[in-house]
């Protein structure tokens, strides 16, 4: 048998580390709705970052934005934001989606 596949796992066992592509699945492609943050409303409380299941809210210093490479669009951030600064917008409304 000729194996053409280039092996992804570096170890014999089923190990994957956090700094290589194995922990970086393209979960952003799963999204059907995108969180859009209103920077004016955001008071940097950080609840969105605390609740975000894949931990993909980026800390921008005095506000948060979702990392769209990983955001699955679950909407927890929009639900939990006390100032309603995050709106879930269908992906179809974006041209980059």
């Amino acid at each position: 048998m000729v194996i053409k596949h280039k092996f992804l796992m570096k170890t014999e066992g089923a190990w994957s580390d956090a700094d290589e592509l194995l922990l970086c699945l393209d979960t952003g492609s799963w999204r059907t709705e995108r969180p859009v943050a209103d920077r004016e409303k955001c008071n940097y409380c950080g609840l969105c970052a605390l609740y975000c299941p894949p931990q993909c809210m980026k800390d921008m210093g005095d506000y948060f934005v979702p990392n769209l490479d990983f955001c699955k669009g679950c909407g927890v951030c929009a639900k939990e934001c006390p100032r309603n600064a995050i709106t879930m917008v269908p992906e179809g409304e974006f041209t980059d989606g």
Partner: protein
Amino acid sequence: MVSTQKGQVRVITGNAAAAYGAMLCRPDVATSYPITPMSEVAEQLSTFRAEGLVDTEMVEVEGENSAMNVVAAATLAGGRAFTATSSWGLVFMYDAVQHASGFRAPVVMAIANRETPGILAVSGGQQDIISTRDTGWIQIIVEDCQEILDSVIMAFRLAEDYDIQLPVMVNYDGFYLSYMAMPVEVPEREDVDRFLAPLKQQPERTKLVPGKPLGCGTHGIEVGFVELRYKHCMAMQRALEKVDEIDRSFGEFFGRSYGGQIEEYRTDDADIILVTSGGATGTARVVVDAKREQGIKVGLVKLRLFRPFPRQRLSEVLKGRKAIGVIDRSVGFGWNCGPMFMEIRALTPEIGIIPMLSYIDGLANLDITILHIERVVDEVYAASQGKPYQEVTWIPLEE
């Protein structure tokens, strides 16, 4: 040639032999949830711990499922871990059993074989081996108490080998061997340390270290899954040769060896071959000797390794014979024959088309007697002479 190391002979049960074997390998973690007929293994290990013979951390668990998860996790943290179970306990940890092998966690587990659910049979049988046949574990089946102890030691060397990294089950007949006391030579701990020392020369296997984030078994998506399954299968194949190698090494070290994957008895000039596994092999040896006296050229093969399946070595020994009889202590649902028979039948392209006879016997603690095995030899011999034969026989139902 090194002189073989002697130990102290003690009269102990099969369960105690398993516990002695584990204790001598100094596991870092051990746990077991009690179940008939293996509870004594955990009791003995706890006694060794209480007596200060080992510093093994004994984890108290609420069930077998937790037990398997504890030992698998312990090996992923780089430790040596041991557990034991039987039948319903094995079934209750079924998902964890597959986690362990999928994680390539080198756990060693002793199993006192017993009938599995759902007919409540607190009695011996090998159905639990069959129920975990396809879980990706290495499965060794042993014949007597000495072999239990020795095989547990060999199992650690096999499981933790860098080229293998697979969990190993050491199977022995529940009720028969588990409770039967036999003289067993218990090796000195320092000698066992030396026997296991080659593991320390190998590269260190990947392990969980605080502060260094690692996932295990978490990224089997798409072709990554295929890759891991392939590696697992290749490790299983490597284990075949490794079992023989470790068995030879054990023989040189302690003066006892068991043939590795299979043990052959009087097969050299045999026309017909009987295949058995576990404790029934002892009875079969007696029958083979008696039948040889009567002029029947019968040989015996003890199947020691069931997974990975010793395809090549079995083919070599079975090729050119006139008929084969296989005694199974379990059933193969959907095939109406013994599971081991079914696998040996799959060797037909290698060994040729000859009569193969399946015998199901010894279920639920029924004895596989000398009379039963004599009957098997007679029928296999008749089949080898061209007489008509019945392919599958449930011996207890024909008595």
